[in-house]
């Protein structure tokens, strides 16, 4: 009996994925642990490993297939005793079965199929109806893969020529309702109106990558729902500048392959500051509660060609500068290769974004929900400051702290910056 190869759910939020690459071709033998394919999710490109052994008999979605739903059959692994007809029948049978139940499995999902297995894999809806006869009807409907749609929605779909097969219903029992179609109609109308505007100019319409879509929706949500307030400041980094120079030339002299960046210092400084202001080491749960954390996990914004990623330095206040530096380098490389794993970017209570290397003096960043805040750091510049009625030349960094006002108020956030200033101006305090 052949084994089904399903689109895996690689993160809790993943509903669909793209087949980035098949590393095995039809006919290849597969040993448990082999990487079969690479799947692009809303957050990263991840490898899909084989659990079962056999021969890759059929690939149902070729490389480049987009928006394949989780648990969709993407390929079939055959065993020795399976004939070609077995495979064909298996695929045919499989397609006629609704695969609406989702699975959180980390690896590839496989379902061993035999004639009775459909009963096991397709569970009846968890909603227990008051009356038994209606439950039976529901079961029959899901077995026949009937798409539930309200009469009104069906009529709208007919009138507007909307294909309902790819729409996920938001009504009870996953029924498609009017609201689900309104989104579709709006999208179509919006696309049309854009065409009208751009008649005089050549336009290339680009489809968003999953990563771009995620960034767009999360930041739109953040900017429109999180009440941001901003605290701006500037800190003298002369001693930090010198310390770093000394450390790095020491490493160089000793032939140690390590170079501490300014960013590493900033990560350490903000982590220690958060440890001192635990009110800010928190996230907004959206249900009338906030969660505070013992450890300080900081998300660091990393720019890649694909888009922005925010891998996390966990327990950053406990780690030495050199450990932070090494971890950061590894995470940045993974991000650029699209190889971050969910555990690399899930979580965090606070973010740091540094555009210093792009010659930006200062900027304000958007909070990464549900986090409490984000600090945006500019370049190190030669600056003039007044100290004790004297004008002095020194190096400074400007920063802007964006804070979710629902979690803390301005006074508390100011305290965080007070500590941050202290650690940056007195880098040796970071070893305390």
């Amino acid at each position, binding site marked *: 009996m052949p084994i089904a190869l399903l689109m895996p759910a690689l993160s809790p939020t993943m509903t669909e994925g793209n087949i980035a690459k098949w590393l095995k071709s039809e006919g290849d033998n597969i040993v448990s642990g082999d990487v079969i394919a690479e799947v692009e999710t809303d957050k990263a490109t991840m490898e899909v490993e084989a659990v079962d052994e056999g021969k890759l008999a059929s690939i149902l979605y070729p490389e480049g297939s987009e928006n394949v739903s989780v648990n969709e059959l993407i390929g079939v692994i055959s065993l020795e005793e399976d004939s070609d007809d077995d495979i064909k029948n298996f695929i045919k049978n499989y397609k006629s079965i609704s695969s609406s139940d989702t699975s959180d499995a980390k690896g590839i999902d496989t379902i061993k199929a035999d004639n009775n297995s459909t009963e096991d894999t397709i569970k009846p809806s968890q909603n227990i109806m008051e009356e038994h006869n209606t439950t039976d009807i529901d079961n029959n409907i899901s077995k026949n893969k009937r798409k539930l749609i309200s*009469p009104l929605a069906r009529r709208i779909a007919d009138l507007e020529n909307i294909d309902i097969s790819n729409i996920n219903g938001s009504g009870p029992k996953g029924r498609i309702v009017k609201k689900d179609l309104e989104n579709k109609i709006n999208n179509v109308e919006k696309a049309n109106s854009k065409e009208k505007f751009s008649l005089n100019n050549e336009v290339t319409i680009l489809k968003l990558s999953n990563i771009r879509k995620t960034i767009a929706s999360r930041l739109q949500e953040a900017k429109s729902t999180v009440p941001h307030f901003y605290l701006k400041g500037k800190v003298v980094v002369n001693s930090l500048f010198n310390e770093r120079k000394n450390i790095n030339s020491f490493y160089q002299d000793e032939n140690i392959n390590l170079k501490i960046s300014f960013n590493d210092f900033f990560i350490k400084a903000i982590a220690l500051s958060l440890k001192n202001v635990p009110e800010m080491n928190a996230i907004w749960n959206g249900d009338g509660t906030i969660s505070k954390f013992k450890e300080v996990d900081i998300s660091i914004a990393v720019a890649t060609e694909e888009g922005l990623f925010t891998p996390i330095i966990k327990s950053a206040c406990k780690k030495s500068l050199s450990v932070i530096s090494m971890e950061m380098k590894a995470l940045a490389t993974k991000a650029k290769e699209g190889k971050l794993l969910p555990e690399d970017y899930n979580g965090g209570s606070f973010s740091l974004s540094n555009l210093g290397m792009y010659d930006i003096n200062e900027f304000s960043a958007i909070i990464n929900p549900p986090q409490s805040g984000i600090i945006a750091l500019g370049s190190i510049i030669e600056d003039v400051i007044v100290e004790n009625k004297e004008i002095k030349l020194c190096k400074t960094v400007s920063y802007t702290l964006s804070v979710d006002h629902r979690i803390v108020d301005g006074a508390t956030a100011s305290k965080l910056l007070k500590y941050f200033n202290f650690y940056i101006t007195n880098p040796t305090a970071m070893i305390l």
Partner: protein
Amino acid sequence: MSAIAVREAIRDAIAHEMRQNNKVFLIGEEVGEYEGAYKVSQGLLDEFGPDRIVDTPITEAGFTGLAVGAAMKGLKPLVEFMTWNFAMQAIDHIINSAAKTFYMSGGKINIPIVFRGPNGRASRVAAQHSQDYSAWYSHVPGLKVLSPFDSSDAYCLMKSAIRDANPVIFLEHELMYNEKFILEENNEYLNIGKARIMLDGSDITIIAYSRAVETALKVANTLKDKNIYAEVINLRSLKPLDKNTIIKSVKKTNKVIIIEEAWKQSGVASEVLSIIIENAFDYLDAEPIRFCGKEVPLPYAENLEKNSLPNSDEIIKKCLDICL
């Protein structure tokens, strides 16, 4: 405009019609000297005297048959049943004589009569005194069936019932007698066969009659806090039913629930639901839901009685399910 109790509204309407038309008379147990078991006929004996406010023995079959005969001969009887539960003794006169004679006489004999009294549950009077007859009577051709909710309904519909040339079943609710409402004398409200929109809304239609309208308004109020605007329809007239108002509202909101204190099977809610399915099927965006009394003889125990009736928390929860 002043607030008056539903009980007074019914009495005032009867008195008003009796002053206009000397063919109108009230007959029933305890309607005269005792001024009605529920004090609906308070002051009427004093004003109209024993010829027009007629006390009877405890014999529903007797005085109902007598009243139907009087109607055949051109009087306008108003028959009070102490409660509609007792009218089962006289139901042959109501159905076979009052409802059918106009048809069977080839339109020669009409029966202008009003049968009225408290219907449905009261408070802990047990199964035999708690029955809702709405579905029973609205099943029968030849009858008009009215079920007022507030004082305006009671006043206006009673006036229209007395003026109507057909037998009218007037179903009052004991627990509403004491409720006070502003009395609006609106010509619209005089129309038999016309429902009343108690609350305008856009997201879901809640249909109810009699005391269940109160539940409907309570549910609508809670939904409003969640930004769901319910339209509440008070049916008032169960036969004829105001199909247009129902269909129009469902076409607007695309969702509907129906609340009825009576039993679910073959009830008024079932009829309303059928009308919706037959006329507005393509406008439904969620399954229509009936919330009815549990299918048991209404229990005497207070807790069980309460649990047998539609529960507003349960209704709200279901509404949120289909609206969010």
